[in-house]
């Protein structure tokens, strides 16, 4: 008998392989100059706060930065005339597991200079804190809430740091962390009991609940809000 070839079912019986054991997250970095004009400018201005840089997927420049200086660097990238990264496409997080740092990832684009850049801030698990950039890009507001919800990273200075996907009173932790069990920490019975005990109205603020009514009422309310905003 020749040995039977492995099938997908064998993998099911074997269970999940601890694929992250030993394999380090991508640490490849390019020494010396980068083609990307922002990288040289960042290194010239911030020096040691720029940890390393690399190119991902062919043409995506990635720069690792010191999280302590992240707000300063991001403010400069948005406001400096040579950079003008005015679009924050994505803020997300990566947990590589095994106690390695959680990385907060900023994906930005400059509509003036037609450049994209990706910044990554490694945060040690003991201090999952970073400055919020919601004041610079409004789009970062909900994206940072998502990273807070799923990874437990605290964004200092965020105007409204609440959970955004999981229920407000979710007590099992931050689900996308590698130390989070796939099926949650509580039993299914406890999860069901907690789910049904939720007060559905509490998901929404009073302002959001007031959005009901006839289209005329909603339009009138929006108009009043616009006038109030214009008057300051």
């Amino acid at each position, binding site marked *: 008998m020749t040995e039977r070839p492995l099938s997908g079912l064998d993998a099911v019986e074997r269970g*999940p392989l601890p694929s992250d054991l030993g394999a380090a997250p991508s640490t490849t970095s390019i020494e010396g100059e980068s083609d990307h004009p922002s990288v040289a400018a960042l290194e010239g201005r911030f020096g040691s706060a720029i940890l390393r840089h690399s190119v991902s997927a062919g043409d995506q420049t990635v720069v690792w930065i010191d999280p302590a200086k992240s707000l300063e660097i991001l403010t400069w990238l948005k406001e400096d005339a040579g950079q003008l990264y005015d679009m924050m496409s994505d803020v997300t997080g990566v947990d590589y597991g*095994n106690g390695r740092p959680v990385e907060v990832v900023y994906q930005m684009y400059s509509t003036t200079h037609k450049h994209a850049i990706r910044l990554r801030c490694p945060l040690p698990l003991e201090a999952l804190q970073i400055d919020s950039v919601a004041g610079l890009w409004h789009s970062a507001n909900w994206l940072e809430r998502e990273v807070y919800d799923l990874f437990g990273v605290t964004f200092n200075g965020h105007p409204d740091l609440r959970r955004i996907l999981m229920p407000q009173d979710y007590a099992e932790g931050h689900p996308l962390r590698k*130390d989070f069990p*796939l099926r949650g920490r509580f039993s299914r019975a406890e999860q*069901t009991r907690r789910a049904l*005990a939720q007060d*559905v109205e509490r998901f929404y603020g009073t302002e959001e609940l007031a959005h009901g009514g006839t289209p005329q009422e909603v339009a009138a309310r929006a108009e009043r809000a616009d006038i109030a905003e214009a008057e300051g």
Partner: protein
Amino acid sequence: MGLGDLLPGGGTQKSEGGLGMFGSGSPTFLTTKIDFVINWGRRNSLWPMPFGTACCAIEMMAAAASNFDLARFGMERMSFSPRQADVLICAGRVPYKLAPVLRRIWDQMPQPKWCVSMGACASSGGVFDVYSMVQGIDTIVPVDVYVPGCPPRPEGLIYGLMMIQEKIREESFTRHFEHRAEDPALVALAKANEAEIVGLTGPFGNSTQQDKLSEGFVPADVRAEDPSA
């Protein structure tokens, strides 16, 4: 199809003059069982409450559209208000955050009411054996018919709804409270008790192994050895 077509004995016998049942010389009244009339009316005018959360809802819409035409069964009026609905069609996955919403919609529907669990995710959680997903809506609300499939084809949903019609045919007006008893004290509570939930939602397939990966936290020595840490 008129009521007369369904009655035992037909009720459509024509008199010698060739006149129909409502013509002169025919009986102007019918006798039948109240159960028969009530069940006939109920099963041919089921108004669905669509609770579509995922791809199953697309198939549900296809079932309602002209090709498959739920209107043939008296279900053309999708009731987007639970107060005027008879049958809840839960089409798609239900996360725990949505569970109280589903339960409240079920509580708001007036009796008599029925529930169809459409597709693998609504019936058992499907492939989503994860922290966020209800493992079968029968833990939340009572389910009359499960339609298997991922997603089921419109024929599958129609067959499920026809099974509801068959179920209604067997019900009796005099035993209404036996069929449809509902305790107001149980409003907004889970349908299944804790032991039932544990039995219904046990890990299966690859997920039986998944807890192992997550056990405990990373030992300090692994963390120290890691060059990138």
